[in-house]
């Protein structure tokens, strides 16, 4: 649109002197164009309204009721803030699940980003067959949320699993990792960290954008590899780091599949893998307390939203955009 004034042949931009062209005819055309836009948007729009917005609003309503999936929606009783009160004051397993989830996110997200960045830097060089390596490292995240992967993980970290057989080579007697309440969450974290492919690819793209001259200049000044990393790579990469951090934090809080598979849907052993979403699932689909589960979901949404806002606010202090004049 910005170029329109420089096109004198365009009737619309030549119009200022001719009031006729700015009148209702133009507005109608505009409206028709908008309509066409909405028509083309409509598959997505219908999905957004029908599959996301309306169910979300219904779940907001349900969070104030004692709804169970076994009764019709209309028979749910309004119980005000009872679900929220129960969550914050009476339900110990709720706070336990919060604690498990926060631990998981606090440990898994930084480790995953560090692993992704480290591997991205290794793969950011010219070498024969480098694209094969990139593909291989990305593979685990393609299998990402899959149930099969979690099942493999369980059998690897059992008492008689592959990992303990490996430890036995060095004469170490392993633990029943997935069945030990002190270690079960760690195996989940390891699984999450291992799936570093998605942030790695984004880091790799970011690394390619860092101007080579900066490194060359630093080398001329005699900077060590570490100093180049700290003073060039990290600042130049900070928008990408920020992007990955936000995405992975949200993902981390939402972890479900691996915990579900590892614990047969119970969050065990002794609730050590009771992630927030798993606890929510149990409340809604196993205990048939869908009203309560809806309340949990809304608190979850608000908390994740708040954390994201917080991250954006801290970003001001450490994220450097190279095109500063546009900020």
């Amino acid at each position, binding site marked *: *649109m910005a170029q329109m004034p420089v096109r004198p042949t365009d009737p*619309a931009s030549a119009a200022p002197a001719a009031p006729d062209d700015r009148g209702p005819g133009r507005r109608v055309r505009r409206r028709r164009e908008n309509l066409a836009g909405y028509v083309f948007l409509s598959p997505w729009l219908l999905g957004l309204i029908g599959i996301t917005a309306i169910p979300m609003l219904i779940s907001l309503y349900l969070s104030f009721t004692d709804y169970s999936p076994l*009764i019709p929606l209309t028979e749910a009783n309004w119980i005000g803030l009872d679900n929220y009160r129960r969550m914050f004051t009476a339900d110990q397993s709720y706070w336990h699940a919060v604690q498990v989830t926060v631990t998981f996110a606090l440990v898994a997200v930084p480790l995953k980003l560090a692993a992704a960045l480290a591997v991205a830097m290794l793969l950011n060089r010219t070498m024969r067959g480098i694209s094969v390596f990139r593909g291989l490292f990305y593979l685990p995240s393609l299998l990402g949320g899959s149930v099969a992967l979690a099942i493999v993980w369980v059998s690897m970290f059992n*008492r008689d699993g592959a990992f303990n057989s490996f430890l036995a080579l060095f004469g170490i007697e392993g633990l029943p990792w997935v*069945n030990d309440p002190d270690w079960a969450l760690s195996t989940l974290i390891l699984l999450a960290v291992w799936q570093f492919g998605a942030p790695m690819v984004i880091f790799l793209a970011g690394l390619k954008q860092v101007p080579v001259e900066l490194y060359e200049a630093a080398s001329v000044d005699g900077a060590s590899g570490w100093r180049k990393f700290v003073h060039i790579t990290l600042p130049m990469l900070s928008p990408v780091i920020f992007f990955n951090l936000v995405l992975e934090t949200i993902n981390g809080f939402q972890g479900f599949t691996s915990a579900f598979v590892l614990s*047969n849907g119970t969050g065990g052993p*002794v609730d050590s893998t009771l992630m927030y979403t798993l606890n929510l699932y149990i409340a809604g689909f196993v205990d048939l307390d869908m009203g309560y589960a809806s309340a949990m979901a809304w608190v979850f949404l608000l908390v994740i939203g708040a954390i994201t806002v917080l991250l954006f606010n801290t970003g001001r202090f450490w994220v450097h955009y190279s095109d500063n004049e546009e900020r």
Partner: protein
Amino acid sequence: MEPITRGITPAQRTVPPLSRRRLLAAALTVPLLLGAAACGGDDEGGSGGKTELSIYWWGAEKRAELTDQALALYTQKNPDVTFKKTWQGNQGYFDKLATLTAGGNAPDIFQIDDNYISEYAGRGVTLDLTEYTGNGKLDVSKFPESLLKYGEVDGKLAGIAMGENTQGLVYDKTLLSKNKLPEPKTGMSWEEFIDWAANVSKTANLPGTQDASAVYQALWVYLRQGGKDLYAGKQLGFDEADITKWFALWKGARDKGATPTPDVIHEGNASDVSKQLVATGKAGTSWVWANQMPELKKSTDSELGVIAYPGDPSAQWARASMYFSAFRGSKHKDVAVDVINFLANDPEAGKILGTDRGLPPNLDVRKQVADTVSDPNMKQTIAVQDELGKKFGPNPPTVPPQGHSKVRSELVRVAEEVVYGRQTPEQGAASFVTAAKAAIGQS
């Protein structure tokens, strides 16, 4: 946007808006029409003399085969009725059933058990079958009375038992004979049993028994032997002291080396039949239901035996292992009830179904099946259940109240806290009683 308008003559311009509007209309109406058509299809399923009933159950492949055959027999006798059959393993079954119900698409007939029947009946999902037993469309005259009663929730007949079972302690016969160890006997006290298991651990170098502290039906028998119960109506039938004793009993068993390590106990606490320790070869005995023995046998080469749980066997009872219920919102209620009636009472159907879901509920059918069954494990199961049936006391428990399945999962959680040594039996008992009260809504 720019290129669209540029260079188009006014004459041309008049046409596109119309077609765009048509396009919009079409875009909006097509999905609506499709949706309406889909709904229409559902409604018309029953007209024209043909009826398709949906039926849903959980179980292993064997059960699916047998149920298929029995339903095929029904269709053969009633060519107008066909079935849309869905089955799956135990895990996730009730999640899916709840989801189907929430969508208003509950199957016409579904299998259910005493963990959930009160939830479904209490919320009006199941059809009250009392009317049908009254007018003779559903024949329950050959049912043991207590078995029929075990399907009643708040005075309504919510489900028809498809099998009868009772607690069964399954043990590895091969392991015992190989090590020249005595077999456990019905009527042993809990302490005698634990000593026996400790001896097995020592001699056979394999944990003698799975830890039963997380097994609700074992706790239930134990409570009844002490004159208590799991529930008294819609209240808990026990107190903290009872649970402390129970947890302490098993702590003693672990200290004596009668049970496996905590992680293996945790593995064996999975509800999956194939993960029971006697089947995976990780312990000498498992705490199951007597009718599950033939199913366990499939996962192991060892010979298996089954007896009652320790203590006085008269505390056990004839439990409906599972029911078939009809959906109250079904469009074909009468047909659904007729199918349930057929599966429960028809001698031919009974012959096909055998004891897969437990002893047949109809006593005539049960006798006929007992006389003709060839599978040695099934034979043994029937013999043991018959034998135990004679000892059952006069006051069987009623069907558990709403919240029972939550009570069960809380027992597993707390018992494992104690097993892993994170809580003492006393602490565990206190937290279990609190959690169980919350689960059944007792103040």
